[in-house]
């Protein structure tokens, strides 16, 4: 793709659950190499949108492309370009972190060597737990394995759904470091979170989803953005 192709581009995305519209027309463009945060109350549609972007869910109508690949026509190419992280860690309890990542590496057709994988695990602070079954890990350690898994195939776009939930301060710091590194490495980050400060910390743009639509878009460092957050999220939205 060229340097002007948006990393993510959504047009008219709707998602209906029966008669209930979870998303009623989302248009969004995320340029390459930019960090973007999506805010919204519970049930506003942030997770649904991210899942559609990750091809875990199918939109009822509209189109969404990631790195130029259409999620309806080339879902596997989309999946190759993205790394999706939520509070689920997707790791197999009976395998060690090394074995888990080795499996994912082969699944993605990467054939990385054990040394490369070990190096990645060291980056996330698991250097000395490489060969312990994941079964015994605390939540924080599990999340680190999850983070390593997400970075394994060097995705161009990171989709993170409330990744800070349940993390201790160390893990939050680790995640922030990795996100900063990702952005300076030219990757695109799309983040959803409840926490205003964490959400605005490294983001360039912020959008607020309310009742299935994008209700506000703006730059993260502007006061209007905080104002909009207060308006939509704190007080309960427009009537």
């Amino acid at each position, binding site marked *: 793709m060229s340097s002007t192709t948006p990393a993510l581009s959504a047009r008219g995305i709707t998602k*209906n*659950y*029966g*008669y*209930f519209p979870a998303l009623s027309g989302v248009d969004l463009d995320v340029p390459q190499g930019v960090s973007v945060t999506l805010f919204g109350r519970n*049930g506003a549609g942030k997770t649904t949108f991210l899942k559609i972007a990750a091809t875990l869910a199918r939109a009822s109508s509209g189109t969404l492309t990631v790195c130029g690949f259409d999620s309806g026509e080339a879902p596997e190419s989309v999946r190759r370009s993205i790394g999706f992280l939520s509070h689920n860690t997707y790791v197999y309890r009976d395998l060690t972190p090394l074995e888990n990542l080795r499996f994912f590496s082969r699944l993605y057709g990467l054939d990385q060597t054990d040394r490369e994988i070990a190096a990645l695990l060291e980056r996330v602070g698991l250097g000395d737990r490489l060969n312990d079954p994941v079964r015994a890990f605390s939540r924080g350690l599990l999340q680190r394995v999850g983070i390593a898994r997400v970075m394994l195939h060097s995705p161009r776009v990171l989709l993170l759904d409330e990744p800070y939930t349940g993390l201790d301060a160390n893990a939050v710091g680790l995640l922030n470091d990795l996100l900063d590194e990702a952005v300076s490495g030219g990757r695109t980050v799309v983040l959803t979170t409840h926490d205003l400060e964490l959400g605005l910390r490294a983001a360039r743009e912020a959008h607020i989803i309310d009742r299935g639509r994008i209700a506000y878009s703006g730059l993260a460092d502007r006061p209007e953005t905080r104002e909009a957050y207060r308006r939509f999220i704190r007080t309960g939205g427009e*009537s």
Partner: protein
Amino acid sequence: MTDRVLNVVTPLSFVTALYFAFVYAPTEATMGTVQRIFYFHVSAGITSYVAFIVVGVGSLMYLYSRDPKWDRLAYCSAEVGVLFAGINILMGMLWAKPIWGIWWTWDARLTLQLLLALIFVSYLMLGAYVADPMKRASLQAVVGLLGAADVPINYMAIRWWRGQHPEPVIAGGEGSGLDPDMYIALGVAFVAVILLYTYLLRKRLAIEASHEQIGYLEQLVASR
């Protein structure tokens, strides 16, 4: 309009069918009056298969188009269809007991009907136990499709099996000397039963449509 016509025609056809079954049709030589249940027993059986074909078509169309109206058609037809399958089995038993002295025999048709009823029931149970309504529709459609593929396979398997191990055939085997008047009575009974199915299906669909409308409005109010 169709509903109004059905409201009148359905009971009328039933009265007619009862006349044909109990008065017009000649009494069967060996089995006597009990045999008259055959007209409704077979009609209910055929109708249950028609109902399942509708489930299959609805399931396929829903998977293809994601239009909720197909999903609604499928599971409403399943609810009405299982009724007719049950009636068929019950009538089969009521017929078998006085004639052969046993409540049940694993004859081909009864066994097939039982399997169909089981597939209906498992389809409906699935619907009852899935929490997310969107997921329910997709999952039921998949199972409906698998069930529809299963029915002809069942037919072949049971027929072949019974061919290996013959047993008394409850319905006396089609074409084993049915009087032409009996065919007419069967035809009339079938029309009546199929009309009843259509009537019940439409009523069930209407209830379901209202249900979903209410659900939608509730969601609308709740999100304000």
